[in-house]
């Protein structure tokens, strides 16, 4: 049952937009303070090398150059950065110590009066290297005998764990058919247009480090303090900084620790704004690079009974939180399908490539791609229609709540209804006819589809699942609402935002609860020392968690107003009725207390407050993740995230057989993220996610040459989709409310990206089917496609 709302789901403007359209966003690189100095970086030209000596004298001799910091000095004064897994022999630090482990790794930092001077000086830092053997490929790094990236760790394996959920071998033995496939997901990332920027300013008398950073990182202030060996109360991260895009990657911990240390050492504010090369090569923001081996067991009708999946992720040179990107997909390991048992081997290995960080969907999009490829192969094997095989395997609406083999319960959904809507909107038969017409014109045309889930409301349960020393069972977010003596309302956000419209979200939620215009709610961001707990906007969680916290804080305010009014009107509480900011007596509606009267009583008239009531109107709520709070079971079952949005992509692609250029002619997506709080925001996120998915599927790759050099390190060779590459998309909405959230909302922060790569791969494979080619690696880049088509045609001729 869909509830009706005053403001929730209405097509309101996004309040943040006004400052951006006039150029008055406040991004980290916009913040300049007197006496500020600038950092440029000296980077390793080798994928692996011992650092023999760092010659600083020439650089230091330049006027305006203040410091050349090397890794040894920094390591002597700081703690290693926190890693997700318990891997103490794989220490990660801002600057390489004695050994550089990837080309582009930061080896020294130069501080000068201007960035230009710092860059000049960086060129004068002489580093002697002794090149070491290196490994780039993930499977090679996993194999015995590989060069080892961290010698003290003894191998390149950070994680190698096999889970068995259900009777996998029995199910395989009892199934009539099985097939296996090997797939690759290439290394790409979110690559925001704003690079990472951070300014740190140490006040030695107040003993406070002020940090302004373009960051999206859970527990960022604590991690900076820990690494710098400062008490948490000495690090003040400013949350009122706009982040110019992140989609996961703006972790920035090494950047912040570096400039924090430099600011303390030099006694001046220090800023680091990555240039594009520093960002792409050494910013530690690459995404998953994953090999999949998938095996499925199924019957004559194409019903999949069991699946075995091996996923090996090449996480690059150091371990951050990235190995957890193999953990999150455990919470949706069967996608939207009724697969009864699963074996899952998750392997994370180090290599001599740039360090991997969190990327939109935190590993789920590659896994969705693998599941969808398997479904398509099953259909092909049985000679069945791809759509029909999906429909047969999908969980049915009456089966919710539905518990999957890995222990997570899906909250709600009506997958068949969403698919039916999309098929109707697209006129599927007409789409097939259009494909066939394009084929008649000599193009390779194909229809692609993907059905997949967006786990949302991030709980960090993969932490205790993959790291037994970590007992995290909550992943909070919070809101505080103050009503001042004038009756003005201010609500708080305790993290930074990167375009997700959180100020709009909080305004709408508080307005909805209090039945007042959301624009009356001022939304502010206290700094980290005045903040309540927040885990930052990761894992499609803020509609659920920040929205939930704002809802509950507003409910507490409303409850207090009712109590004050009932006491002041001398009526029983149950007769007091709240409406639009006022409270009246249901029995005698003319007896009422206005908003301003109630506020005045709360702030000024203690004698009129119910006994024992705290004066003033200040309410906080720290939100626990719905369905959270439990540790994983011994056999590795866990409730990962609470809510599961569904999306179904359907598209028509045409490939020029000579150029290999793939053009998307039609694109439809059905999206069910429960109750939509702001339609403009959700639509934008879905569109942006699809655009990013087009990039990951067709153009973007952090390619390395055999010598270990990153060869895609500018926007001329790492290709982001432009307005030409992204087609108009017809979004079909469906609403299945979540039972676990205050308005029935689910997350949508990663929507579109969850299924677009799988759907595009499906379309390309349909287009190539007449040539007998199957593409198993993403991205499917134009030149590669042209070569494959030419080779297939030559073979046929």
């Amino acid at each position, binding site marked *: 049952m869909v509830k009706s709302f005053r403001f929730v789901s209405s097509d309101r*403007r*996004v309040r*943040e*937009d*006004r*400052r*951006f*359209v*006039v*150029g*008055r*966003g406040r*991004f980290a*690189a*916009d913040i*300049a303070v007197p006496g500020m100095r600038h950092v440029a970086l000296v980077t390793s030209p080798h994928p692996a090398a011992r650092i023999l000596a760092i010659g600083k004298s020439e650089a230091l001799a330049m006027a305006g150059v203040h410091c050349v910091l090397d890794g040894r000095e920094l390591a002597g004064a700081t703690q290693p950065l926190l890693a997700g897994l318990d891997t103490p022999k794989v220490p990660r630090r801002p600057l390489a110590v004695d050994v550089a482990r990837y080309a582009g790794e930061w080896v020294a930092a130069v501080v000068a009066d201007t960035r*230009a001077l710092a860059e000049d000086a960086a060129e004068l830092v002489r580093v002697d290297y002794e090149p070491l053997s290196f490994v780039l490929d993930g499977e090679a790094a996993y194999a015995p005998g590989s060069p080892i990236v961290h010698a003290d760790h003894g191998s390149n394996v950070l994680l190698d764990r096999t889970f068995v959920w259900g009777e996998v071998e029995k199910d395989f033995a009892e199934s009539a058919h099985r097939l296996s496939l090997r797939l690759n997901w290439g290394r790409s990332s*979110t*690559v*925001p*247009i*704003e*690079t990472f920027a951070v300014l740190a300013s140490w006040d030695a008398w107040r003993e406070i480090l002020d940090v302004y950073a373009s960051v999206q990182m859970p527990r960022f202030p604590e991690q900076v303090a820990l690494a710098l060996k400062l008490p948490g109360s000495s690090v003040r991260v400013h949350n009122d900084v*706009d*982040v*110019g*895009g*992140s*989609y996961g990657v703006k972790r920035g911990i090494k950047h912040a620790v570096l400039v924090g240390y430099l600011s303390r050492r030099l006694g001046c504010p220090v800023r680091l*704004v990555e*240039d*594009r090369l520093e960002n792409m090569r050494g910013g530690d923001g690459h995404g998953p690079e994953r090999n999949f081996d998938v095996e499925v067991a199924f019957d004559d009708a194409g019903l999949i009974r069991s699946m075995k999946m091996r996923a090996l992720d090449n996480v690059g040179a150091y371990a951050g939180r990235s190995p957890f990107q193999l953990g999150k997909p455990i919470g949706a390991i069967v996608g939207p399908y009724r697969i009864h048992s699963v074996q899952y081997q998750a392997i994370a290995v180090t290599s001599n490539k740039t360090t991997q960080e969190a990327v939109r969907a935190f590993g789920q999009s590659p896994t969705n791609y693998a599941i969808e490829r398997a479904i398509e192969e099953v259909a092909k094997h049985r000679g069945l229609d791809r759509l029909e095989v999906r429909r047969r395997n999908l969980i049915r609406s009456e089966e919710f709540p539905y518990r999957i083999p890995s222990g997570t319960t899906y909250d709600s959904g009506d997958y068949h209804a969403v698919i039916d809507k999309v098929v109707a909107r697209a006129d599927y038969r007409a789409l097939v006819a259009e494909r066939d017409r394009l084929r008649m014109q000599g193009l390779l045309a194909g229809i692609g589809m993907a059905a997949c889930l967006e786990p949302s409301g991030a709980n960090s349960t993969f932490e205790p699942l993959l790291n037994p020393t970590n007992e995290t069972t909550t992943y909070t977010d919070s809101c505080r609402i103050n009503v001042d003596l004038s009756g003005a309302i201010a609500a708080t956000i305790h993290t930074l935002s*990167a*375009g*997700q*419209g959180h100020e709009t979200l909080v305004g709408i939620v508080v307005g909805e609860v209090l039945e007042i215009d959301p624009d009356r709610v001022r939304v502010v961001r206290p700094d980290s020392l005045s903040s309540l707990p927040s885990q930052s906007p990761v894992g499609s969680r803020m509609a659920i968690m920040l929205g939930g916290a704002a809802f509950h804080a507003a409910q507490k305010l409303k409850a207090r107003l009712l109590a004050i009014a009932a006491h002041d009107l001398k009526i029983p509480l149950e007769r007091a009725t709240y409406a639009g900011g006022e409270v009246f007596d249901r029995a005698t509606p003319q007896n009422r207390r206005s908003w301003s009267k109630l506020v005045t009583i709360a702030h000024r008239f203690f004698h009129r407050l119910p006994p024992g009531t705290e004066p003033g109107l200040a309410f906080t709520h720290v939100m626990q993740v719905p369905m959270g709070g439990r540790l994983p079971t011994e056999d590795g079952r866990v409730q990962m995230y609470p809510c599961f949005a569904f999306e179904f992509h359907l598209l028509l692609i045409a490939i020029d057989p000579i150029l290999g250029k793939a053009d998307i002619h039609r694109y439809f997506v059905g999206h069910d993220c429960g109750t939509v709080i702001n339609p*403009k*925001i959700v*639509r*934008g*996120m879905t*569109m*942006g*996610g*699809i*655009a*990013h998915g087009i990039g990951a599927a067709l153009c973007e790759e952090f390619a390395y040459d055999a010598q270990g050099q990153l060869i895609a390190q*500018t*926007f*001329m060779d790492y290709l*982001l989709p*432009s*307005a*030409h590459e*992204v087609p*108009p*998309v017809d979004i079909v909405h469906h609403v299945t409310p979540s039972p676990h959230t205050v308005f029935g909302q689910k997350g949508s922060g990663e929507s*579109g990206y969850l299924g677009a790569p799988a759907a595009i791969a499906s379309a390309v494979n349909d287009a190539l089917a007449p040539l007998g080619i199957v593409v198993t690696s993403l991205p499917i880049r134009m030149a590669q496609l042209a070569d494959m088509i030419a080779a297939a045609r030559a073979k046929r001729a």
Partner: protein
Amino acid sequence: MRVDLTVNGETYALDVEPRMSLLDCLRERLLLTGAHAGCEHGVCGACTVLLDGAPVRSCLMFAVQADGYDITTIEGLAPGPGELSPIQDAFCETHGMQCGYCTPAMVLTAHALLADNPAPTRAQIVDAVSANLCRCTGYAQIVEAIALAADRMRGLNWPERGW
């Protein structure tokens, strides 16, 4: 090196290093931070400003090269404090942005397009927008914003197009 820059109707006499880019000069010397650095090699367009009305990459130009031109930055578009130009308002109406980082450049690009062509087709809007990269939106709501602005600026209240 001495340079006279005319920015948003005001002239500034500055002494700059010859190698200082126009972008750095606007941001660091004039504190006009609405133009942003994205790639600093001319691809992303986040640094776009208007030179005599035409969009240019301020990261690929030296400040000294801009002497004598009429430079418009995003700070020069709003009619007054708290007010929005029709194009800025249309971007708010369609939510043609998310993080806001590429937005000033997109608004200026739209401004230049509509000054030249008050009734662009969708393809012409896409063509203009394709000069700038946006990583958040997938461009749809940006394209719609420009179409909406064009229609409103021609005196219509709402786009009549089918798309």
